[in-house]
């Protein structure tokens, strides 16, 4: 449970930093009037949808931290047998990085009002993401073909579980990306600036979500490839 505790500590630090800027030491019983918001310092207002996505990413982060926690606890037991990782995972990692880059380019295009670039970047991101999911399926088949799809091997069960949950999150993101791309193709040069602004926000949220999925995948990939063993051992040493 080291990983999830570290995640919680990180969240607590973030929450503490945020709360410290909310005037928690104010004396509300002494202050009357409207102009006392946040101890006088006005914070920039983020779009509600972005705050919503941020909150969701925290929940998803907690979910993945728990999976990693469970995985590393199980790895620590004496009878752990590691899996040979399919090479195709390297390709999927590359594809996910490409998807993330494409969405970031889409975001830049949206901010510069370049509709053509925006559309091509979104399409590229969608294609890369679908290709990523396909290569994950190939990895599943490769493992199954070499006889690791057995119930009695916890390593393979964990492999299928974490990749499936990560893939499910990707599928959910693809629904949002589909809706965004439909809107991007419906727009024209004469569309009102409000619609363009809303599209730019959608693209920004998609990009944020894909970066998050990439970060999670890189951590999972490191864990599956057993590069993080030493790190986990050090963490455990610190705590015990």
């Amino acid at each position, binding site marked *: *449970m080291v990983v*999830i*505790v570290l995640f*919680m500590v990180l*969240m*607590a630090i973030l*929450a503490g930093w945020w*709360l410290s800027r*909310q*005037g*928690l*030491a*104010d*004396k*509300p*019983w002494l*202050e*009357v*009037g*409207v*102009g*006392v*918001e*946040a101890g006088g310092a*006005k914070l920039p*207002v*983020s*779009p*509600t949808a972005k*705050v*919503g996505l941020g*909150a*969701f990413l*925290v*929940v998803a982060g*907690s*979910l993945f931290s*728990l*999976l990693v*926690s*469970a995985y590393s*606890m*199980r790895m620590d*037991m004496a*009878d752990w047998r590691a899996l040979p990782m399919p090479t195709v995972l390297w390709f999927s990692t590359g594809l996910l990085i490409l998807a993330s880059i494409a969405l970031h380019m889409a975001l830049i295009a949206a901010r510069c009002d370049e509709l053509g670039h925006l559309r091509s970047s979104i399409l590229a991101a969608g294609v890369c993401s679908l290709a990523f999911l396909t290569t994950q399926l190939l990895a599943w088949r490769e493992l199954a073909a070499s006889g690791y799809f057995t*119930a*009695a*091997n*916890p390593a393979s*069960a*964990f492999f299928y*579980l974490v990749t499936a*949950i990560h893939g499910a999150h990707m599928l959910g993101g693809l629904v949002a990306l589909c809706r965004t791309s439909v809107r991007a193709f419906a727009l024209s040069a004469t569309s009102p600036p409000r619609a363009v602004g*809303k599209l730019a926000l959608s693209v920004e949220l998609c990009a944020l979500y894909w970066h998050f999925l990439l970060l999670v995948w890189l951590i999972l990939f490191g864990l599956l490839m057993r590069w993080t063993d030493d790190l986990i051992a050090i963490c455990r040493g610190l705590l*015990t």
Partner: protein
Amino acid sequence: MADVTHDAAGPLSAAEVDDVELYHPKSWITKYVFSQDAKVIAIQYSIVALAIGLVALVLSWLMRLQLGFPGTFSFIDPDRYYQFITMHGMIMVIYLLTALFLGGFGNYLIPLMLGARDMVFPYVNMLSFWIYFLAVLVLVAGFFLPGGPTGAGWTLYPPQAILANTPGQQWGILVMLVSLILFIIGFTMGGLNYVVTVLQGRARGMTLMRMPLTIWGIFTATVMALLAFPALFVGAVMMLLDKLVGTSFFMPAIIAMGERLAHKGGSPILFQHLFWFFGHPEVYIVALPAFGIVSDLISTHARKNIFGYRMMVWALVAIGALSFVVWAHHMYVSGMHPAFGFFFATTTLIIAIPTAIKVYNWVLTLWRGDIHLTVPMLFALGFIVTFVNGGLTGLFLGNVVVDVPLSDTMFVVAHFHMVMGVAPILVIFGAIYHWYPKVTGRMLGDVLGKLHFWVTFLGAYLIFFPMHYIGLMGVPRRYHEISGMAFVPPSAATLNEFITIVALIVGAAQLAFLFNLVWSVRHGRPAGGNPWRATTLEWQTPQTPPAHGNWGKDLPVVYRWAYDYSVPGAAEDFLPQNQPPTPQPA
């Protein structure tokens, strides 16, 4: 929202730059069934939660009948008894308390108390309720499937939860896990709404430190729930795979009924960690909204500002943070390293500090207050006493050396029923009596209310106080029958009979409450807009019950904190939060 006015100088709050248009229902179905209005969703949540809670109440009666009069009711065999225990616990903790505090009170009070028109994502909010409803239906389906609901205990510990010969092994455990997964998905949708609404939807002038403590409690609890429920989600998914696909996340190599099972290499302790990483915060997910609500009830009905508002906020946040590092105190007997036991006992006892701060502050709020013994106030006072009582036995159980002999005895049952059963339920009742006039425009019957309080409060003590002694005798929990054990004196059986009779009476008193709820919708005394003369925004709506959009044309502007009661020199003994300051003579 187009109809927001900017009438006073000052920075804009998030609510005024909101790009979400208020959704307007067009038909009866979208107004009352698939509604996106947080108030309707709140009522839907509350009705479903109370209905399923009634099922859990009946289950507790059946358990008590078996414990009080063993052998008299032949249909309560050991299997059924386990099923009743499991379903009673799970329903009460998750489908009643969590859903009612966050889905019910959260939905109703967050937009109203913060001066918002609705939640920020109303469509997702509607989905949240319907997924919760589906989760309840799936859960109830367990009663009608072959083999009945699961009898694994509400903690669903593997390996026994999915082994043959545990009741409900065919279908019960499956529908339980699926229902939990659905509940968590639905709750996450609602929870994101509650958090983001608090962050983004507050009216102008409503700083965080002007929010009523009710909102602070619900907000902190929701943040905790969003972080903690994924642990149950992961655990439930993994157990589902163990059961369905035959993986071995939690299942070690086992020989059952002389036969070697296919499972190999799983870790039951891993499930305990995941379960209690959710399970302990869950206690505070239920308690923090109760803390917040009770603070507001006491302040309003004692006509006095809350003592130590800042400290109350800090304590809520501190309890929320600490509750994530105590989970293994539920696992002292799982064979953990003694150093871990020491660590978790220490963190557990540290939580007593912020909790004690809250209790002192409630008592100091009452001190020399103008206490009105209304029904909500009675329930609030009942809560303080009960919570202190349950909390004190928590000090026993939080210590490893005391916990080990008391583990799995009726002492534990008595402790957690006091602290997270009876205490939050008392707050729920108090809150219903307090806000019912706003929801329906009519008061709940006072005489029935007082009868309900006294029978429930005294009855709860008559039930659970003796249970501590039964536990100290060493009577184990989860046993279908304890007669014939040499160390159990005959007086334990007499005590059990007594507890059962009281439990039946207390249960019947809840029927009077339900009757009051239904009867008063039409026949209650008209309440007016602000019957308790309270300061918070929900009592200042132009209509009662509040109309769609809550605030008429203009959103309220907040000028002061939520606890201006008995202000010296004021015309009335309270100043609503949206009352502008009187201009000072030049």
